[in-house]
């Protein structure tokens, strides 16, 4: 069995997703967590782009449309996450989430 090129890219997408997930859980710094989510997202996008190339000679447009939508969502998500992270830093003075849950009086 030969490894088709598209399958290689699809597996790379799976790998990126796994790396991102590891960083999301293991890293404390919020910026790293946000980047980790972006890496996970890129993994899924790469997977989608790879499977679009199964149908030779023309690529399947549906996964590409999904990736475009996904990128828009991911940009919004990153924007919101960065704004919140900035707010966390101004209120707590740290770029990390507190270890224990807190409650405002």
């Amino acid at each position, binding site marked *: 069995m030969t490894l088709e090129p598209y399958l290689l890219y699809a597996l790379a997408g799976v790998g990126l997703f796994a790396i991102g997930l590891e960083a*999301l859980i293991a890293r404390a710094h919020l910026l790293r967590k946000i980047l980790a*989510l972006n890496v996970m997202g890129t993994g899924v996008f790469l997977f989608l782009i790879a499977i679009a190339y199964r149908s030779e000679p023309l690529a399947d447009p*549906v996964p590409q449309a999904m990736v475009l939508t996904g990128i828009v969502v991911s940009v919004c998500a990153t924007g919101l996450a960065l704004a919140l992270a900035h707010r966390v830093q101004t209120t707590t003075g740290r770029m990390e989430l507190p270890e224990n849950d807190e*409650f*405002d009086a």
Partner: protein
Amino acid sequence: MTLWDTAPWLIWSIVLPLSAGILTFLFRRAAPWIGIITTLGSAVSVAALAGQVTHAGPLRYSVGGWGVPLGVDLRADGLSVLMLGMSAVIAVAVSVYASRYFSDSDATDKHTAQAHQRAYFWPLWMFLLAGLNGLFLAADIFHLYVTLELLGFAAVSLAALAGKRAAVAAAMRYLLVSLSGSLFFLFGVAILYAAYATVDLTALAGKVQPGPLAWSALALMAAGLLIKGAVFPLHFWLPPAHANAPTPVSALLSALVVKASFYILLRLWFELFSTVVTPAAASFLGLLGAGAILWGSAQALNQTRLKLLVAYSTVAQLGYLMLVFPLAQHVGSALTAWSACIYFVLAHACAKTAMFLAVGNIAHAAGHDRIAELDGITQALPLSVAAFALAGISLIGLPPSGGFIAKWMLLQAAISSGEWGWATLILAGSLLAAAYVMRVLWHAFTQVAVARPLHRVPRTMEWSALALSLLAVLLGLMAARPVELLRSGAPVSIHAPGQT
């Protein structure tokens, strides 16, 4: 056929809140009125849609006339109509409550913070409602992903609305959890598309076969939805996010937003993967539910703060929903279990909203929500304490409440299929719920000689909590119609998953 019968009502439940999101952002002074009118209009369109589905069966609508595979289709069956109805009722009550909650200027020192909250609450809440209604009407799994994200963004922003240190940290954690959950879901969507070259729910349902691809898609999607739905042990983010939000937001998050993930899980499990799921996987989800009921209730009993107690009660009640998966395994009890769990969703939504609104009133009047110091609150706020107690009746599952009917049907399903373990668990959960509700009422009903000076609570806020709690109790008396509506397009009547 009149225009009323044939009009595409389902589109209005999305279009109205979406337009209102923009209008409330532009016209801040009129925002509460725009919000209330929109939720009423959306409720009317849902009622008309319910009529259509009752008469003509499940509906499908191609947005813009494009159709599959280019365009986005919407569809409505009994389950989506009931979910839309639930969100419509909660939406009206919460909007009425919020119109006073954010405009009450008792605390002049917090005036700027309050103006800020009022300015952003309405647009975000309208976008949340649009996302939610879009999710309940989605006909394909990619549309489900997009609406899940829209819902998540609005929910996170609302959770951060208070702007204080703890609320912002809780919202940040919520966002990270929500985004990773959505990415898991999206990965499942990608795998399903890779395997079957379609994202349409109906088309996929006929194509999905057991195999490594289907299993990995199911595992990824279920994992994403379980974390977004705060199912034990992935519930860690829920209590701080829900307890630190302003009262109307806590109610919306607990009553509606977590249910969206459960709704998708239900659709996937019983429609898409009905040939893939195994009894072992169903029992596993049931065990998670059992953990949620026991752990969530125990934590609720341990809390010193009222809002946190209610938030942990949400964790416990979500556990009951997971019991549908093992109980629907048996062909004979599948429809009972399915109806029971949907009814549970409806009853919990009403009861939990009422409870959070009542708790908001109590906290507003007393200036704190420490359970041990609530002695004599009944003398000051009889209506809100009554709302709390009535909502508690439904959460415990005492007749004739909606919670009672739901638990009764769950018990019926468990007993008729000989599942005594699940039956015991359902009863144990009720006892625990009774314990934590009683604990609050014990303090609330303690008579004290002189009540401390309390903040005034607007009457609208008291009545909207009471109205919803009455609805939660009365839901038990009108169970027949929703249960009948549920059969329209119900995926469990013919076969049970794992037994085909």
